[in-house]
C-alpha cells in the first residue's frame, strides 16, 4: 500500500516537473516578449548603446514599415548583411557548401519528423489500450505503444546529434546568414533550446516510467505525460517552421531586413500556418511509414508464427495511421500552394509552372506510388481473413480506376523536347495527352485515386464480416450510389473546368476535395455503424499475409522518404538566389538551381543514408528485446493472438 502511495506521489511529482518544464520556456520568454523582444542584429549596436538619456534616444528612434504586415515599428536591429563571395561570408571546404548543408538539414529533418510523429502514435495507441474493455487487447495495445516509443528513443539521440551537426554546418559554412537569422529570432532562440530540454526530459521519464506506471491512476498520469510530450514536440516544430516561413515569406522586418521589435510578426508569417499543418500531417504519414517498414522488417526476419502475427498487426496499425494522415496531406499541400500564390504569384508560378514544375511531376508520380502501394497492401491483407476472397474479383476494376487516375495525375503539361521532336508533335503540348496536363484534370485524377483508396479501406473493414443490421440492404445500396455519384461529381468538375474561365475554375478544387472527404468521413462512419454486431465469417489470421505485402510497406515508407526529400528541396529552391526572400541575397557561388537530375540523385543519396542509418537503429532496438513468456490468451473475436515481447 505504502509502495503504491509512494509511486503515485512520485508520478504526480514527475508530471508536475514536466508541466514545469513545459512552462519554463514561456516563463523565460516573458521578459524578452514584454520588452518587445529586442534583437540587435549581428553587427548592430550593443544593448548598452540603448541606455542613453531619454532625450537623446528619442531623437534616434527610427521607424520603418513591416514588409508584410505594413505596420510601423521601431527599428530594433541591423539590416540584413550584404554578403560577398569570399571566405568571410562563405567559408568553404573543397566541396559545394550547399550540398553539405542540404545533407545535414535533410537528415535532421528525417529523424526530427520521425521522433515527433511516433510519440503521437504512441499516445493514441496507449489511450486505446487504457480505454479498451478487453484486457487482452488492452495489453496488446500497451505493448505496441511501448514498441513504438522504444524505436523512437534511439532515433531521438540521433536527431539531437544531427541537430548539432546542422548548427555547426551553418556556423562553419554560412556564418553571415546564420548570424542574421539567429539575430532576428533571438527572443525565441532560448525557448527553442529549453523546449528541446523539456522534450528530452519528458521522453526519458515517459519511456523509463512505463513499467512503474502501468495501472490505475498511475497509468492515466503516464498517458498525460504523452500528451505533454506531444505538446512540447509540436511547439518545437512550430518554432522551427517559423524560421523557414521567415526565409520564404519574411515579416516583422523592414525592406532592409531590420527587425521591427514584434517577434510575433516574425514568427507568424504568411506561410507559417500552412507549413505547420502540412508538416504535422507529413510527419505523421512519414512516421507511420517508417514504423510500418520496421514492422515489415521484423515480420520478414521473424523466427516463428507468433512473432510474425505480432509484427503483421503492428505493420497494419502503423500503415493505417500513416495513411489516415496521408489522405488529407494533398489538401494541406494545396492550401500551402494557394497561400504561396497569394503571397507572391511569381513564387507559385516558379513552383508549379516554371523552373520547378518538372519536380511536381515527379512528386505526382511519388504520390501515385504511395496510394498504389497502400491499395496493394490492403488487397493483400484481404488474404489473411476468411471471407476476404469475395472481394478479390473486383480488384481488377480498382486497378483500372487507379491507373487511369494515376496516368492523368502524372501527365505533364509540356514536354522538354529537341527541335525535331517539337516539330514532329506540332508544338510543346501533345495534341491529345496535352489536354490532361492541367490542374483541372490532375485534381480529378488525384481525387479519384483517394476515393478509390477509401473504398479499398471500406472493403478491407468488411473483409471477414457481413453487416447484420436490419437496414443493411438500404445501407449497401446507399453506399454504392453515394460512391458512384462521388466519382461522377469529381470527374464532372474536372471536365467542367475546361469550359469556364481560369478565375472560376480555380474554385472547383474545393468541392472536389469536399466530395472526396465526404466519402471518407460519411461512408466510413456508415460502414462502421453497419458493421455493429456484424456476422463473423472467420477470424483475421494475423501473420498469414503474403510476403509481397510487407515489401509494399517498405515501398510505402521509401516513397514517403523520397517524396519528403523532394518536397523539401522544392520548397527551399523556390527562394532561388535569396537566403531570405527579397531581403537577404545569396551571393555564394551556389546560388543557382540544380538540374532535376542532380537534385534527384541528391535526394536518393539522402534517402539511402537515412534508411541505412535507421536500419542500424532498428537493429539496436532488437538488441534490447527480451522474449517474455507467452501468456495463455483468450481468443479475441476477429483477431488472432499476438505474442508479447518483453520490455
Amino acid at each position, binding site marked *: 500500500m505504502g509502495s503504491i502511495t509512494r509511486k503515485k506521489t512520485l508520478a504526480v511529482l514527475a508530471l508536475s516537473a514536466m508541466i514545469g518544464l513545459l512552462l519554463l520556456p514561456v516563463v523565460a520568454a516573458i521578459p524578452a516578449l514584454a520588452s518587445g523582444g529586442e534583437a540587435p542584429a549581428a553587427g548592430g549596436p550593443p544593448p548598452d548603446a540603448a541606455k542613453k538619456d531619454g532625450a537623446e534616444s528619442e531623437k534616434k528612434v527610427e521607424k520603418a514599415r513591416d514588409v508584410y504586415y505594413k505596420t510601423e515599428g521601431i527599428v530594433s536591429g541591423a539590416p540584413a548583411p550584404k554578403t560577398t563571395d569570399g571566405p568571410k561570408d562563405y567559408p568553404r571546404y573543397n566541396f559545394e557548401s550547399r550540398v553539405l548543408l542540404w545533407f545535414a538539414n535533410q537528415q535532421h529533418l528525417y529523424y526530427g519528423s520521425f521522433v515527433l510523429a511516433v510519440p503521437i502514435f504512441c499516445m493514441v495507441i496507449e489511450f486505446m489500450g487504457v480505454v479498451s474493455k478487453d484486457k487482452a487487447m488492452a495489453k496488446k495495445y500497451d505493448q505496441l505503444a511501448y514498441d513504438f516509443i522504444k524505436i523512437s528513443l534511439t532515433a531521438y539521440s540521433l536527431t539531437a546529434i544531427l541537430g548539432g551537426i546542422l548548427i555547426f554546418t551553418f556556423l562553419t559554412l554560412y556564418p553571415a546568414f546564420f548570424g542574421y537569422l539567429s539575430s532576428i529570432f533571438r527572443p525565441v532562440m532560448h525557448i527553442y533550446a529549453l523546449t528541446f530540454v523539456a522534450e528530452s526530459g519528458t521522453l526519458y521519464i515517459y519511456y523509463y516510467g512505463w513499467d512503474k506506471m502501468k495501472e490505475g491512476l498511475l497509468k492515466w498520469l503516464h498517458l498525460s505525460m504523452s500528451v505533454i510530450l506531444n505538446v512540447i514536440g509540436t511547439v518545437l516544430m512550430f518554432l522551427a517552421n517559423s524560421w523557414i516561413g521567415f526565409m520564404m515569406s519574411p515579416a516583422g522586418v523592414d525592406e532592409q531586413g531590420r527587425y521591427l521589435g514584434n517577434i510575433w510578426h516574425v514568427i507568424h508569417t504568411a506561410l507559417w500556418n500552412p507549413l505547420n499543418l502540412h508538416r504535422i500531417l507529413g510527419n505523421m504519414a512519414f512516421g507511420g511509414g517508417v514504423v510500418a517498414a520496421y514492422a515489415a522488417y521484423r515480420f520478414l526476419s521473424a523466427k516463428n508464427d507468433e512473432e510474425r502475427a505480432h509484427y503483421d498487426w503492428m505493420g497494419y496499425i502503423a500503415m493505417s495511421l500513416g495513411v489516415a494522415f496521408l489522405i488529407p496531406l494533398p489538401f494541406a499541400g494545396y492550401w500551402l500552394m494557394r497561400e504561396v500564390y497569394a503571397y507572391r504569384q511569381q513564387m507559385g508560378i516558379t513552383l508549379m509552372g516554371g523552373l520547378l514544375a518538372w519536380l511536381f511531376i515527379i512528386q505526382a508520380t511519388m504520390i501515385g506510388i504511395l496510394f498504389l502501394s497502400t491499395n496493394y497492401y490492403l488487397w493483400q491483407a484481404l488474404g489473411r481473413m476468411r471471407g476476404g476472397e469475395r472481394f478479390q474479383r473486383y480488384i481488377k476494376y480498382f486497378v483500372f480506376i487507379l491507373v487511369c487516375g494515376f496516368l492523368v495525375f502524372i501527365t505533364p503539361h509540356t514536354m522538354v523536347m529537341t527541335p525535331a521532336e517539337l516539330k514532329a508533335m506540332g508544338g510543346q503540348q501533345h495534341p491529345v495527352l496535352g489536354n490532361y496536363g492541367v490542374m483541372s484534370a490532375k485534381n480529378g485524377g488525384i481525387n479519384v485515386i483517394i476515393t478509390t483508396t477509401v473504398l479499398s479501406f471500406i472493403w478491407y473493414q468488411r473483409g471477414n464480416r457481413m453487416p447484420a443490421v436490419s437496414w443493411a*440492404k438500404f445501407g449497401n445500396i*446507399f453506399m454504392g*450510389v453515394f460512391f458512384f455519384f*462521388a466519382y461522377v461529381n469529381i470527374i464532372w468538375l474536372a471536365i467542367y473546368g475546361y469550359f*469556364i474561365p481560369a478565375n*472560376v475554375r480555380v474554385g472547383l478544387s*474545393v468541392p472536389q476535395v469536399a*466530395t472526396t472527404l465526404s466519402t471518407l468521413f460519411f461512408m466510413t462512419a456508415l460502414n462502421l455503424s453497419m458493421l455493429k454486431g456484424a456476422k463473423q465469417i472467420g477470424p483475421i489470421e494475423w501473420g498469414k499475409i503474403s510476403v509481397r505485402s510487407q515489401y509494399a510497406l517498405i515501398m510505402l515508407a521509401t516513397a514517403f522518404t523520397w517524396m519528403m526529400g523532394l518536397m523539401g528541396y522544392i520548397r527551399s529552391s523556390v527562394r532561388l538566389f535569396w537566403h531570405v526572400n527579397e531581403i537577404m541575397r545569396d551571393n555564394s557561388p551556389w546560388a543557382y538551381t540544380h538540374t532535376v537530375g542532380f537534385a534527384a540523385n541528391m535526394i536518393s543519396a539522402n534517402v539511402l543514408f537515412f534508411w541505412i542509418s535507421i536500419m542500424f537503429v532498428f537493429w539496436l532496438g532488437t538488441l534490447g528485446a527480451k522474449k517474455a513468456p507467452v501468456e495463455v490468451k483468450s481468443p479475441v473475436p476477429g483477431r488472432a493472438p499476438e505474442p508479447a515481447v518483453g520490455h
Partner: protein
Amino acid sequence: MGKTIMYVVVSVVISVAYFTLVDHFLMDMQGLDYWYLFRK
C-alpha cells in the same frame, strides 16, 4: 424488387442533391458562381 428500386431512387435523390449543394455552396463561399456556364 420494389423495395430495392425505392432504395435506389432514395439514394440517388439524396446523393445528387448532396453533391449539387456541395458544389454550389462551396463555390459560393469563395465568391464564385458554380452555374457560370449555364447562366452565360
